C-alpha cells in the first residue's frame, strides 16, 4: 500500500464489464512527508474520496481484490481516507 493525494476525477462512460459502478480518481502518489513521489495515476475509488484528500491505495493484483466484483482489470484502488500520518 502507499499514500496518495486525490487531485481529480475521471469520467468514462464506456467501460469493461465489472467496472460499471466503479468511480475513478486521479491520484498523485506521495511519500511519508506527503511530497509527490512518482507519476500520477488513475485509481478506482472504494471509499468516496474527494479531491484534495490524502488517501491510502493498494496497487497491483491486490487492487482488484478491493473491488466488487473482484475479478476486474484494476491495478490501483483507493482503500482508505487518511486522517493523520504520524512520522
Amino acid at each position, binding site marked *: *500500500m*502507499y*499514500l496518495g493525494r486525490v487531485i481529480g476525477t475521471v469520467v468514462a462512460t464506456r467501460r469493461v464489464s465489472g467496472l460499471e459502478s466503479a468511480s475513478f480518481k486521479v491520484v498523485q502518489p506521495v*511519500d*511519508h512527508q506527503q511530497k509527490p*513521489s*512518482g507519476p500520477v495515476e488513475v485509481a478506482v475509488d*472504494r*471509499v468516496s474520496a474527494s479531491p484534495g484528500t490524502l488517501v*491510502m491505495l*493498494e*496497487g*497491483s*493484483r*491486490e*487492487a*482488484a*481484490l*478491493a473491488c466488487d466484483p*473482484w475479478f476486474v482489470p484494476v491495478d490501483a*484502488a483507493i*482503500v*482508505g*481516507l*487518511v*486522517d*493523520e*500520518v*504520524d*512520522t
Partner: protein
Amino acid sequence: MNLCRVLGTVVATEKLPVFDGRKILVVQPLDEKQQPLGKSFLAIDHSSCAGKGDLVLVMNEGSGVRQVLQDKTAPIRSLIVGVVDAVDVPKTA
C-alpha cells in the same frame, strides 16, 4: 521479504472493513547496511508489536499475505511479519 524501518503510523477512520482493527505503518525499505533504499510504503502489522523506529521484516507478496491472514480476497500486499533484533552481514573481500 524486505528489511524495513518503521517511520510512523497511519490513522484512517474511513476505510474498507478488511482493514478494521489492523495497524497500518509507514515503512522505509533498507539495504544490507540499513540505509534507505527506494520509496517508503504502507504495511499492515501482523506481528502486532512493531512501532516507530523498529527494524522489521516485511513480506511483499500478496498471495503469501492472504495465506497468512487466511483470507483469500484480502486486498493486502505488504505485511509486517517480524520485528528484527539483529542483522549480521559480514563484509566480503
